[in-house]
């Protein structure tokens, strides 16, 4: 692997990680805690959407995020020819 493609590969990885971590932070610290007052208008079973994200939604999003990252990284590995 040339230096140039190694740099590009790592940059693509960092970009993907950043996107995933932004979503990770928004559903947990955002919707679950800090932005909960903004979501208080959306009622769910006796409480609001923020409560649902704190106790259910963030966990489900985390699962999706990991599989999304794994699938995208496998594609990037192949693209750069560094897959196993």
């Amino acid at each position, binding site marked *: *692997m040339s230096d140039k493609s*190694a740099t590009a*590969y*790592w940059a693509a*990885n960092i970009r993907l*990680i950043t996107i*995933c*971590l932004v979503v*990770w932070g928004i559903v*947990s*610290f955002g919707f*679950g*805690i*800090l932005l*909960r007052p903004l979501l208080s208008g959306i009622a*769910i*079973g*006796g*409480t*609001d959407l923020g*409560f*649902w994200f*704190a*106790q*259910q939604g*963030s*966990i*489900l999003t*985390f*699962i999706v*995020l*990991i*599989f999304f*990252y*794994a699938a995208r*990284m*496998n594609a990037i*590995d192949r693209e750069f*020819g*560094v*897959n*196993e």
Partner: protein
Amino acid sequence: MDQFTLNLIVVGASFALYIGIAIWARAGSTSEFYAANRGVHPVLNGMATAADWMSAASFISMAGIIAFVGYDNSTYLMGWTGGYVLLALLLAPYLRKFGRFTVPDFIGDRFYSQTARIVAVIALLVISITYVIGQMAGAGVAFSRFLEVSSSTGLWIASAVVFCYAVLGGMKGITYTQVAQYCVLIVAYTIPAIFISLQLTGSFLPQIGLFSADASGQPLLAHLDGLLSDLGFRTYTEHHSNTLDMVLFTLALMIGTAGLPHVIIRFFTVPKVSDARASAGWALVFIALLYTVAPAVGAMARLNIINTIYPNGIDGETSLSYADQPQWMSNWENTGLLAFEDKNGDGMIQYYNEANAPAIAAENGWAGNEMTTFNRDILVLANPEIAGLPGWVIALIAAGGLAAALSTAAGLLLAISSAVSHDLIKSVINPGISEKGEMLAARVSMAIAILIATLLGLNPPGFAAQVVAIAFGLAAASLFPTIMMGIFSKTMNSAGAVAGMLVGLLVEMVYIFTYVGWFFIPGTNMLPNTADNWLFGIQPASFGVVAAILNFIVAYIVLAMTKPAPAEIQDLVESIRVPRGAGAAQSH
């Protein structure tokens, strides 16, 4: 058949199953002892990781902690699952590519320094022993109930069982035993939850039931909020705590998860780098099965407790009479973990918040809250009894709690003993040690760790989940930042890493010990462990985030003042960033 016999049979049968599988699996694969994960399907490997990870804190303690606080303790749910995202994205694939067996091995080799290795071993020991205290506290509660003994006797029995279990050794390495433990644990947790959800809301899935209407016609959570505020308690669904602390606590649990040595080592031995990424996902799927049910268990149990104590509703003049108390109350009273005191001498039990006494207290002549002790760690174990479920469900939950505590305790003890025998003695103190001597050192260090954890577990600094959270604060402060920098900074050198780890670990330890007592010894704390005394309202476990930030800052300052890592180390970091060429994990 009485409940006691039934408990013994079900718990005994589950133990026989684990031992049976261990013997069966061992016969064919002695040579592949360390590489037991290889060739195992990623889904099964995910189950095994989930069993390893979900401990007494998750199984026995967490729902109780949520039940008595509500929304504000959602931090445990988000924190203990969100860490897997960090593991999958930031650590697991690179540590797999690096190919070592222990965390101190990675830190020692990446930072080309024996000092770094020794500091990592110390951090690992502090984290793991704190974690084991929480496991022992939880396992002690489970044993005290199902053997019907006092809580301290239960703890000593638990420590004896954990010792025998961990010293059997090989069991831990065999993935199929852990798969069986996961199955026992998840069935034991979800069956009572499904029954209770059906009873209260008619919904089969507890995750849906939590947001459904109950017999009162209003949503279950709204009903619970109403009852709690009538009794002077804080409402369940609203936010009452310090928001800064809530954010930091969640973050500390997340980065602590990604810094826990016994979790990280699971990813060293998967066959490929891409498997390391996916196996974190599968582990989280199986963890989420319990974690999405837990908040429903908590809310429904709180409602059931109120309904049990006020069978005619809280507005009536009568509450549950002490003489008529259900069997589960007297059972748990025997352990000392549940206690009543008839303060107004009316022969009835009143449960309310006396610090914020509601109007009905004065109207009905209540003289104080009479359910004086309700240990949070009994809630999940008592839950089937509270809901009046059949005896086999009650026995099953005891078996599940013990599976959770034992599988994690064994994993932690293995991490402790390998840190002492492999990373400290073999790599640093005495490289020429015989294999026999290494095994002896491993067993002795296990025994010492169990003894310390048991003594401190007799009077633990909190409920099981709270003690475990402190271990996460320590992991967040010490190991996570150093491993991160080892991967994401090519130039980070040994001096920076060592200084960062020492500062992070020491700052967090001093902050914790200030509030919970030096080395967790009760009564030696310098300030009371309450929100008023915490710095900016940040609790000891949450402070791990502050210490982690200090770890990063100190490391970069020292790096700026010293020479960057040598070229061959920078090449090494370059190579762990690409998956191709990952060989098998190898011993140092």
